[in-house]
């Protein structure tokens, strides 16, 4: 298979190797791929809630959809299931056999596999690819439309998609974007068939993936059977998959401990819970991973007092990130700015850079600086800053908000907590009807292009704080098209520093996940991501 190795790829590879040199983060007894996989068996998989949008990955932004839907689909390209760190160099072909950057990284051509069929027997062609991504980017002549389209912005740089023949598809970009390939490799980027209306994926699934949907018993389970016509020979190894929906967390882990389930679900195991599980079942394999989700503080920059950067900076300074990790996350998180820090991610700021930023240094000094900044902004003991902190009425959000309120109280800021139901949360932040909030943000791919435009870009619907800075926007554009990986990394670091200095959306920490699986499950290697590794075609059972 032809795998182009561009400059970005070379730096990513170097970084990945560097990560390997410092040691993969706390990988405890990760199952090794044995020599002779066995075929057969059904893997019982944990699913924490009902599929919110069925199998409609393109209409969803939650792992509760992606995790149980991925085995049905294929992407053009995907991250190598056996490599824990995801980067350009771990991308392998799925529906695309090979690909090539052309026109100075302004065109990306994919050469597709032949003789691939959809689960209903219809042939897969380049038209399906064009159809899918025209629909997602909402092209003027797109033949179909998604009801909800959370990732339209990922494809803002796509000018046109062409399918010159049934086995070639070309993405024409407005400007070079080397990391575009990573977006296509995300679990959020499956290819849909032209002959199935997108709305039908809410209730059924027709893909080209290794498993075919057998049954979705609402609120109970999702069952797959092996796709005998899967385009990779001798895959999948398993006869089937069963995603068992168990809403109660204690029951889920009891089921795992009792062997009713073989594997947990990503972003479900806390450090404490999995430690207990490990104590009860010493042979249970627990892997510490970065699911690429951070806790952050929202401050509405369009409303007083947070339209004043001094006040935002004061708030950011007042909150001790390391205390947050210790107290709220009980050590199950790491400090970092707007991208995951090494060794958990490739692009995040390192410890020495973080130490210079507000809120990451010495708490006493930072709190004194906070008081000075607040005084400059006209707030003090006689005239305290009073704010309302909104958050979702769920334990993890409330714990986080309560911690922030306590930190603010120590610098004389009087903050009150407003809990809103989940149904109200996004309308509230989308309409900017809040002053301050505690929030979690998950990223589909560890790449600046999957984060900056969406969460910090002017006018983006998910830029909940409405932070908008022309200089930052220019740098975001610049890093996106930078072909020199070293220069890109330097730019990305500078952007993160600027975002922290402006308290655009202060990051509290990057949560770690503790993924549990029985040792008889082989070849299921959790990645530093929650979304891109559950195709299951390489998984087998050694019972």
């Amino acid at each position, binding site marked *: 298979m032809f795998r182009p190795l561009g400059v970005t790829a070379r730096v990513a590879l170097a970084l990945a190797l560097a990560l390997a040199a410092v040691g993969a983060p706390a990988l405890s007894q990760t199952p090794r791929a044995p020599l002779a996989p066995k075929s057969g068996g059904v893997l019982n998989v944990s699913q924490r809630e009902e599929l919110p*949008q069925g199998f409609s990955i393109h209409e969803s932004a939650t792992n509760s959809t992606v995790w149980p839907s991925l085995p049905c689909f294929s992407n053009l390209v995907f991250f190598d299931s056996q490599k824990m760190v995801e980067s350009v160099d771990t991308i392998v072909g799925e529906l695309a056999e090979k690909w090539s950057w052309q026109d100075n990284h302004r065109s990306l051509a994919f050469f597709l596999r032949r003789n691939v069929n959809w689960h209903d027997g219809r042939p897969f062609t380049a038209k399906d690819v064009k159809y899918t991504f025209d629909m997602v980017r909402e092209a003027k002549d797109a033949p179909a439309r998604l009801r*909800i389209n959370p990732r339209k912005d990922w494809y803002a740089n796509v000018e046109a998609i062409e399918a010159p023949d049934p086995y070639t598809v070309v993405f024409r970009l407005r400007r070079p974007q080397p990391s575009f390939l990573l977006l296509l490799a995300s679990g959020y980027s499956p290819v849909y068939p032209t002959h199935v209306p997108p709305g039908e994926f*809410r209730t059924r699934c027709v893909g080209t993936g290794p498993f075919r949907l057998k049954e979705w018993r609402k*609120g109970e389970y999702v069952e797959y059977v092996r796709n005998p016509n899967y385009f990779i020979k001798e895959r999948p190894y398993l006869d089937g998959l069963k995603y068992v929906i168990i*809403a*109660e967390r*204690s*029951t889920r882990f009891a089921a795992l401990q009792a062997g009713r389930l073989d594997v947990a679900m990503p972003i479900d195991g806390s450090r404490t819970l999995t430690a207990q599980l490990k104590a009860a079942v010493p042979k249970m394999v627990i892997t510490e991973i970065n699911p690429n989700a951070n806790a952050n503080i929202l401050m509405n920059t369009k409303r007083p007092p947070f339209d004043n950067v001094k006040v935002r900076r004061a708030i950011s300074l007042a909150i001790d990130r390391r205390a947050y990790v210790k107290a709220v996350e009980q050590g199950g998180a790491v400090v970092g700015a707007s991208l995951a820090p090494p060794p958990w991610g490739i692009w995040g700021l390192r410890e020495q850079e973080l130490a210079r930023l507000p809120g990451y240094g010495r708490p006493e000094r930072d709190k004194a600086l906070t008081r000075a900044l607040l005084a400059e902004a006209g707030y003090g003991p006689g005239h305290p800053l009073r704010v309302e902190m909104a958050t979702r009425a769920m334990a993890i959000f409330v714990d986080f908000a309560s911690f922030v309120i306590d930190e603010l109280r120590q610098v004389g800021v009087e903050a009150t907590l407003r809990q809103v139901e989940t149904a109200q949360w996004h309308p509230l932040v*989308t309409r900017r009807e809040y002053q301050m909030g505690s929030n979690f943000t998950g990223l589909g791919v560890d790449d600046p292009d999957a984060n900056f435009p969406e969460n910090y870009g002017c006018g983006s619907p*998910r830029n909940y704080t409405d932070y908008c800075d022309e200089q930052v926007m220019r740098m975001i554009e610049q890093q996106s098209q930078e072909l020199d990986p070293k220069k890109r990394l330097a730019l990305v670091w500078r952007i993160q520093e600027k975002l922290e200095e402006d308290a655009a959306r202060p990051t509290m920490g990057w949560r770690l996940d503790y993924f549990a699986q029985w040792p008889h499950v082989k070849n299921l290697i959790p990645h530093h991501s929650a979304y891109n590794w559950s195709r299951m075609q390489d998984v087998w059972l050694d019972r």
Partner: protein
Amino acid sequence: MSIVIFGLMRLAPGNIVDILFGSAGYVNEADKQLIMQELGIDRPIWVQYLHWLRDIVSGEMGKSYRYDLPAWQIIKPLIPVTVELAVISTVIAVCLGVPAGVISAVRQDTALDYGLRLLSLAGLSMPSFWLGMVIILTLVAWIGWIPPVTYVPVTENLPIHLVQFLLPGLAVGYRSSALIMRITRSTVLEVLREDYIRTAWAKGQSGRVVIWRHALGNAFLPIVTVIGIEFAFLIGGLVVTETVFNLPGVARFLVQAILWRDYPIVQNLVMFIAIVVILSNLLVDLLYGWLDPRVRFAG
């Protein structure tokens, strides 16, 4: 009643479209309007109400917003699960509560009475879901086993099916039995002081006949009332037990439907629960007539 059910649901903030967008992490007002139009929740409330009534009368019961499937198709498999669990729990509650109450009354102020009252107090104090969780965690910790976490129909495997229901049935039944035991004890104690009981003893009738036929027979009306109320409560009140034991019943699904503002599902499930409450009350009233000749011949 239908107006109350319909109206209450609309009082909750937000609707399914907010939730859908929430799970996608943003809201697009134009798209939101389109989806609301598609689901018919942009219409005036009274129009929506009339549509729902029309759906009920036609037997369709509307369409689930979340699943885009007929509501009846979603609700139908849930009902037998909850009814079976409620019946098993009630049977366990009666089997434990009534004899314990009678024994406690007959052996009033003995060590046995104190012991049984203590057990009933414990039953009333322990939420059934907590007891359920303790059962599950104890099983997994001691023998590394728990019942299957997916529902096994009776036709598929009877023993496993029974185990799946007996454990939650015990957790729920124990709590209900405590209430039944206390009611039984107090009413039996009251009846035991009646003249006709004294007469029965004086006539030399056996203790079994006096207590179980004369005393309990006449003390049974309030007990039946409590059993009826408990059963009706269980139909909608098993939320946490169904969640803990992962049983696909009405109550668990109802909570999910409320969280998703899936109005057609919620309205029909609440309607179903209301009908069960009415029917169980009716059954209790009919039982009064069968148990008590005074009621039977009063008309």
